[in-house]
């Protein structure tokens, strides 16, 4: 049962198709991309019986409205948005049946940024390099807009799980504590700056997007001004440009960067960053590196 399933009337500030991204192409300049809050995406998919990595909608600060062209089963997770189906409130974190012809509207989330709308069958869009993720920096795919029609894939074998509502942690409006591993270039920064990184409350700037979250706070200073030959970065990398105000890279980040990365947020905490709103504050808690750093000045002569 595939075919046109819904038509978008309003897409809010940014609505894109996302799955878990495209791995293996960073060496050609293509980042992973994919859902910024992967836990919310996989949950939404499970709630409608889809494979965890099925393609769904990532909605930024709500504002999505669409008309069902046929009966749909959907689930909404992530940033908690008020949802209505033909004006009647519908639940979050659960499978919702939508009759053909009904209008589904997402309001503005109280907290968090990104909500996920999974549709039973998964969204059927052309895959580029193995993924349906829209990558704004690499220019793969385009954001959805009014009038766009969405098709679904085949109904999965798995049924809709029998539960009323998934117990999900709502994104927090308080300061977020993120675990970081210092490095690879922590040794480029002054001791004072390393202390600031771990003690300050870093405010999320409004100029944040899927590429990265800009942070404002104390100026992080390098021991001496040096030029870094471009090197690879990953989502979670906290890059510090010359103005000393860090940028925390998200899924559509540049694959290489020419500013030093002072620390990297751990994989499990990236979903929290995806839900950090402008004005919200982040705190970084350093954890020990999985492997000790090898510096030129303390590299063992023999191994």
């Amino acid at each position, binding site marked *: 049962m595939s075919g046109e399933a819904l038509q978008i009337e309003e897409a809010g500030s940014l609505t894109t198709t996302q799955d878990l991204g495209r791995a293996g192409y960073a060496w050609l300049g293509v980042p992973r991309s994919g859902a910024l809050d992967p836990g919310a995406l996989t949950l939404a998919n499970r709630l409608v019986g889809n494979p965890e990595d099925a393609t769904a909608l990532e909605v930024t600060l709500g504002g999505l409205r669409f008309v069902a062209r046929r009966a749909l089963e959907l689930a909404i997770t992530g940033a908690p948005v008020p949802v209505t189906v033909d004006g009647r409130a519908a639940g979050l974190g659960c499978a919702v049946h939508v009759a053909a012809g009904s209008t589904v509207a997402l309001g503005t989330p109280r907290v968090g940024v990104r909500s996920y709308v999974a549709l039973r069958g998964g969204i059927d869009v052309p895959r580029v390099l193995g993924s349906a993720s829209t990558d704004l920096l690499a220019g793969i795919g385009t954001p959805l807009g009014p009038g766009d029609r969405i098709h679904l894939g085949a109904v999965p074998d798995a049924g809709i799980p029998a539960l009323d509502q998934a117990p999900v942690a709502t994104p927090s409006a308080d300061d977020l504590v993120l675990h970081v591993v210092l490095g690879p270039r922590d040794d480029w920064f002054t001791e004072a700056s390393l202390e600031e990184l771990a003690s300050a409350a870093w405010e999320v700037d409004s100029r944040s997007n899927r590429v990265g979250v800009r942070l404002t706070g104390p100026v992080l200073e390098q021991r001496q001004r040096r030029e870094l030959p471009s*090197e690879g970065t990953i989502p979670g990398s906290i890059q510090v440009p010359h103005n000393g105000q860090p940028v925390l890279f998200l899924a559509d980040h540049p694959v290489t960067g020419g500013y030093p990365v002072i620390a990297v947020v751990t994989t499990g905490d990236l979903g929290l960053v995806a839900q950090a709103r402008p004005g919200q504050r982040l705190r970084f808690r350093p954890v020990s590196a999985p492997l000790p750093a090898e510096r030129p000045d303390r590299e063992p002569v023999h191994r």
Partner: protein
Amino acid sequence: MRLLPCGDAALLVEVDDLRSVLALAAAIRADRDGGGLADVVDVVPAARTVLLRCRPGPGVLAGVADRLRGLETAEHDAEEGPQVEVEVTYDGPDLEDVARISGLGADEVVRLHTDAEWTVAFTGFLPGFGYLVGGDERLVMPRREEPRTKVPAGSVGLAGEFTGAYPRESPGGWQLIGRTEETLWDPERDPPALLAPGTRVRFVRVGP
């Protein structure tokens, strides 16, 4: 080879120079193709480093680090990469500037550009935008004072020690010396980038 931490699921390997980067990246790819380093998801060579993004999991990074230290990189020199020819029309808007800055004259700039065997060191900036090295040192160029807001797809340029070609239209600050009709990026091709790291490149003058 120095291993630097990069979060809980990646390692940044720092080496001495670009030549070592090319050898190490080639050795890593060969080892992974042979079934080793199976936990490595992405390999990102750059100017002095190779980034390895791995599957998250306990002990994964330690295992990858051990395997890396045992890799024999010496036999993977740049000469092993595939070879491509890129046809270029040398009529770029900055060719005269490059000729003036280098003091060579336009014909000599083109001759040096086409005589060299370039090697793609790494990519970045845009999907399929390769940074090619191996040119004559007289072609080392500063970036333009004022970057262009629109550089057409296929533009061939110089910046620093590198030459490169824009896979699609984008802003850019490279000194443009020509243009190519080659399809530099095609997601349906394997690999999608014509100028993938390790590829050896000769530019062929087709005009003017």
